[in-house]
């Protein structure tokens, strides 16, 4: 009961999950890439039901870079997996590119980048990037051409004949991004892709990812638990909170522009947005302990 009240209080108090979402809906002319309404996901654990997602509303327009941030257990990864049809919601509506998640998946609308590179060790980097194309039945010549284009995009030219285990962790994750992009999906879903990397490599990859986003114009959904990473990368930041997993704030970060360098992390605008994210995370935690 208490949780329910708190939830409403946040809604009314102008950290408006639904309001911000509606705002996003008015802006673009094209239909939303992801439209979520009243989505919930509950599963039964040994000690009672777990509300992984509760009444989530969200609209994502084409070409945006959306970060999902929140403490562990807030449902950010679950939400991403529901969008990818890797997890089944127990209530609510969800549309990806105008169709259900399953149809979107069967249509190969998205590329997914996991927490670990998940490259196949028996395939060379080139062959790993060609894997989705191979499964989709693309001809050999076309496969090679597309893969080498992606290799160039993630700066892995010259490593195509190496095996994944001969590359560094950062390079492996770049290869897995190239693999996700190889079949030119409209959506790129990334689940804490740089979580296992050290900060310097992570900064470097963040910069590269932004350039890649700018070049390809894809819609990116990015799960993270790092505030600087979320603010640096995103055009919008979705702040989430656990028990029950829900959205408590959606912050527009487009004031930072599209063309960002690591230096902007010192600017007042950046710090202001980072502060608001932190506030949101704190609000979500306040009644927890």
């Amino acid at each position, binding site marked *: 009961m208490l949780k329910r009240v708190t939830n409403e209080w946040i809604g009314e108090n102008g950290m408006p999950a639904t309001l911000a979402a509606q705002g996003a809906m008015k802006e673009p002319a094209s239909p939303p890439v992801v439209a979520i309404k009243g989505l919930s996901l509950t599963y039964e654990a040994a000690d009672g039901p777990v509300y992984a997602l509760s009444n989530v509303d969200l609209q994502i327009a084409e070409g945006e870079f959306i970060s999902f941030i929140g403490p562990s257990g807030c449902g950010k990864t679950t939400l991403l997996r529901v969008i*990818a*049809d*890797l997890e089944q919601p127990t209530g609510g509506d969800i549309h990806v590119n105008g169709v259900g998640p399953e149809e979107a*998946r*069967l249509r*190969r609308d*998205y*590329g*997914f980048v*996991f*927490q*670990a590179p*998940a490259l*196949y*060790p*028996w395939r060379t980097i080139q062959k790993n990037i060609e*894997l*989705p194309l*191979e*499964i*989709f039945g693309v001809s050999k010549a076309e496969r090679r051409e597309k893969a080498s284009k992606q290799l160039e995009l993630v700066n892995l030219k010259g490593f195509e004949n190496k*095996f994944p*285990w001969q590359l560094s962790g950062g390079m492996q994750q770049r290869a897995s991004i190239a693999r996700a992009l190889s079949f030119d999906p409209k959506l790129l879903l990334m689940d804490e892709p740089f979580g296992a990397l050290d900060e310097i490599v992570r900064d470097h990859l963040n910069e590269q990812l932004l350039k890649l986003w700018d070049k390809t114009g894809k819609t990116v959904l990015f799960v993270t638990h790092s505030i600087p990473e979320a603010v640096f990368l995103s055009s919008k930041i979705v702040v989430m909170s656990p028990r029950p997993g829900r959205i408590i704030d959606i912050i527009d970060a487009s004031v930072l522009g599209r063309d960002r360098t690591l230096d902007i992390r010192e600017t007042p605008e950046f710090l202001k947005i980072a502060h608001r994210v932190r506030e949101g995370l704190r609000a979500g935690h306040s009644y927890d302990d």
Partner: protein
Amino acid sequence: MSANRHALILTPLAILGCLYALYLVHRPDVAGQAGLAFWAFIVVLWLLTGFAISGLSHLKLKQPVARRAIGLAVPVLFGAFLFFLWEVIVIGAGVPSVLMPAPSAIAAKFSASLPLLRDDFFQTFVKSVLSGYAMGCLSGFLVAIIADRVPFLRRGLLPLGNFVSALPVIGIAPIMVMWFGFDWPSKAAVVVVMTFFPMLVNTVTGLAAVGKLERDLMHSYAAGYWRSLLKLRLPVALPFIFNALKINSTLALIGAIVAEFFGTPIVGMGFRISIEVARMSLDMVWAEIALAAIAGSAFYGLVALIERGATFWHPSYRT
């Protein structure tokens, strides 16, 4: 590091010493009545060889060719020294050949009965072992694929397979002789029974060894059952399958030899062993044992070699 350089001088010295000891022990006045001085000499040789081999194995060399040569020399020298000890002790102490023939006697018997050994090898290894191995491994593999696809079969078949594999060979062999006759098919059937289950269990385990991320990845590509089987699950299962192939390569030989104790035409390695034991010609038994050891090791080595090529990406082989 340079302390190990002495191995390069000690090794030839030890080899020369051993050759001299071999010459000594075969002299009529030493064979069977070697004195204390001779045994002291053997102990000295033992220590010398020990130092030489341990020095060799610690040697750090720059050229890859030299390193390879040393890597090969250490086990060869070690094995050769064990045979040397065997020879010297058996001859020097005059151990009766019924108890333990000398390696030289076994080698002599081996080379003298090559045609017989060839026939036995062909009967037991080529006919029984290879055909049984191929059928057992292949059927184990196929049943594993089916069991993986149909969950209730997995629950039903695995305990049944377990039960069959727990049956003793000496129990199955006579039954198989009743079913398939005296010639090699009954031996192949025993080999099938022995090799089927390791392959089944290993393949089922291997197919289940796929990580969650990799599975999700295939799901996100909307890859069907056969595609993810071919592109992901079988490669992941490959190290497990090779494990079964290696285990089975030795099991099959044991199974075929033991099965020949229970009725066989007058040819075959197991038949020869049982007959020659009864005739107290133990050197022939040892020649058959040597043949089985050579064939078994070569078979295992071949499978291991293929494994190395096929699963080069596995963490245990990465370079």
